[in-house]
């Protein structure tokens, strides 16, 4: 029987160099997205892809989440799902505000009205 606060098993140093290198490559790739001026959905999906890959590597390896007790992993990662609700609700509302601003009060009058009417026909 060992002490409850046994020290972490040691990981080979190679994995940290690998992740370090991968993070460099992924950062360079997300910088290139701007450098070569990709636009629209291609730009947004590439930014999100590289962002989630980087975040995943940092959390899983650097922060040792993959070696952690499953109970702790669940307690930390599951509550973050609430943020999706927040983001969803706020973007839903933001679209509505943008539409009403365009329709009623902006300095550039009628921006949204024109766009919306074009969409309808």
């Amino acid at each position, binding site marked *: 029987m060992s002490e409850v*606060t046994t020290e972490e098993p040691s990981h080979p140093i190679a994995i*940290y160099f690998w992740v370090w290198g991968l993070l460099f490559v992924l950062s360079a790739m997300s910088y290139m997205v*701007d450098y070569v001026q990709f636009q629209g959905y291609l730009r947004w999906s590439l*930014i999100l892809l590289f962002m989630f890959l980087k975040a995943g590597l940092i959390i899983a390896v650097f*922060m040792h989440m993959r070696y952690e007790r499953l*109970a*702790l992993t669940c307690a930390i990662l599951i509550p973050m799902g609430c943020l999706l609700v*927040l983001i969803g609700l706020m973007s839903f509302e933001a679209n509505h505000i943008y539409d009403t601003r365009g329709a009623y009060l902006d300095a550039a009058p009628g921006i949204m009205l024109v766009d919306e009417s074009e969409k309808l026909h």
Partner: protein
Amino acid sequence: MSNETVVDEAGRPIEIVEGLPGVVADWSSDQRVFKRVPWGKAMMWFFLLSDTFIFSIFLTSYMTVRMTTTVPWPNTSEVFALTVFGNHIPLILIAIMTFILISSSGTMAMAVKFGYEKKRKITTFLILATALFGASFVGMQVFEWSKLIVEEGIRPWGNPMGAAQFGSSFFMITGFHGFHVSVGVILLLIVARKVWTGDLENRRPGFFTGRKGGYEIVEIVGLYWHFVDLVWVFIFAFFYLW
């Protein structure tokens, strides 16, 4: 499933269950929840969870003002461009800052590893290297802020390039992140000293709380540091690149 039994500090036996049944066992054991996880580490994770919510709220409000404004958003690629030796390079300072922060995360992860192996010299060196990377990051941020304020005329309430909300979002988000980095550098220096003087190795009581800590403290401050890097990943994607 290999069930293992360990004893806690009071000598009581604790069964360690792995996998999904382990989640149930951990939560329902009527004892400390996360078996074999130092309490300080669990608490740091909970702090980071709450900090995640703070930064997410900042980024979500940035999303909201950017989606609602009918004035064009300033082109970050141009706003953050620098002219280096006559070459106009978009976003270059931000890219350098990103690489520096990632490098600091790399040295920190290795410091944690060598800390658990009780290699005092290399652990101290790696923590100090991390702190140095962090301090240079803050220095570059000071340069970036002063350039934006003095040369570009960007204010929290307006700017010459477009939507007024650009300045308030930028100063709020990067300012709060820079504050986290600065606090992290101070924490790293304190922990580096603890490692160097052997306070952790000999489990001497800390000067502030009087609690005894071992090398898990290096991992705990490392968690904070990686989180700061993690937040930057999201700021880089959503504020600078989007």
